[in-house]
């Protein structure tokens, strides 16, 4: 049996080892205060891990995994070549995706997702790519399709090494709060919250793999598994499946808000896109 009504589950009471106080206390806290509380908890819990190493995810806790990633450092080349070709492809009107973004897309990924004040919603990198296509009368791409994944892999590679710098203006706080609330809520048949694994149990091993801390997760997407490109939202959807919850659609307001919350928590960490995963 799966829990079909995820919205009801989202609203269910949070009762999670050591995070209830954090979640409750954070209910009216500013994004900076929430980030401060999460950072402090992880530092207390993982004293041997440097903050900059949070961006390594599971590999921060496992030398062997880190060596495997290093050995597959070139795995992204074919995907990046495909993404670059799509990025520079001329539209029917002669424009390109590259020309839609400042600096040809260099360093733009650090500021996504961002709040769109006119639409009053969180605007992701994928939405910005589709907005460019729409403005130039090109067919839109599937949010979680292979072409969109290749383009985001390439664009995020143009920000490799630059620090995540997502802003949450006052008007966007409800979206940040929605993402925070979902992160701390138990969901699905297995009754886990995202925070169960990535805050409470960060660094412990689930199915033999160390659980990545919440801080850093948004700095290192997409991942490559074989030839598949896993965006942050694809990864969240896979987690929701494991939790026995019906995953929200890619690009839904729920996942966009969750991505917004997660990315803000990774502010200040350098982007490391396209790491290989076993």
């Amino acid at each position, binding site marked *: *049996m799966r829990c079909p009504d995820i919205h009801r589950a989202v609203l269910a009471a949070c009762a999670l*080892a050591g995070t209830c106080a954090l979640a409750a206390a954070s209910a009216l806290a500013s994004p900076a205060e929430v980030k401060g509380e999460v950072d402090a908890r992880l530092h207390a819990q993982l004293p041997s891990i440097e903050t900059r190493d949070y961006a390594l995810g599971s590999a921060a806790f496992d030398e062997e995994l880190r060596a495997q990633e290093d050995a597959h450092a070139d795995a992204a080349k074919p995907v990046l070549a495909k993404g670059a070709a799509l990025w520079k492809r001329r539209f029917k009107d002669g424009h390109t995706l590259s020309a839609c973004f400042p600096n040809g897309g260099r360093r733009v990924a650090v500021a996504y997702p961002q709040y769109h004040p006119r639409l009053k919603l969180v605007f992701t990198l994928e939405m910005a790519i589709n907005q460019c296509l729409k403005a130039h009368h090109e067919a839109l791409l599937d949010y979680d399709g292979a072409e969109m994944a290749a383009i985001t892999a390439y664009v995020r590679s143009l920000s490799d090494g630059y620090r995540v710098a997502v802003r949450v203006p006052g008007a966007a706080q409800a979206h940040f709060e929605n993402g925070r609330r979902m992160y701390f809520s138990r969901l699905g048949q297995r009754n886990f919250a995202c925070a169960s694994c990535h805050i409470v149990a960060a660094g412990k091993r689930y199915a033999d793999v160390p659980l990545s801390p919440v801080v850093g997760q948004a700095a290192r997407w997409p991942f490559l598994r074989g030839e598949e490109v896993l965006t942050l939202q694809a990864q969240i959807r896979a987690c929701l499946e494991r939790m026995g919850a019906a995953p929200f659609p890619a690009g839904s307001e729920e996942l966009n808000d969750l991505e917004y919350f997660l990315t803000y928590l990774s502010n200040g960490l350098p982007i490391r896109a396209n790491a290989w995963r076993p």
Partner: protein
Amino acid sequence: MRGAALAVAALAFAAASAARAEALTGAQIFLRPDKGNCAACHQVSDPAAPKTRSDLGPRLEGARMRSIGRERLRALLTDPMAGNPETLMPPYGRHRILDASQIDRVLDYLDALP
């Protein structure tokens, strides 16, 4: 009439036996990701179980399982939050991840651990 009733009972018995024969063992329920998936969190003292470094939950050993006792373990598997609202363990009975018979088989497996 009595003969027909006996035949129906025999058929029912045969069907139940066949279902039991096909039923997963406690070890299988313990390990399978779509069932208990217990090995994702716990190491276990079963020499036949895959070796893992999973440590989200405590290592499960026979002596400890037997000292806790079958009924307390059953309550824990059914609804661990009843005893500990902050636990990360799934409510196998309350959320119908496993049925009563499957929980029984997992309890048999835990009880028989070395």
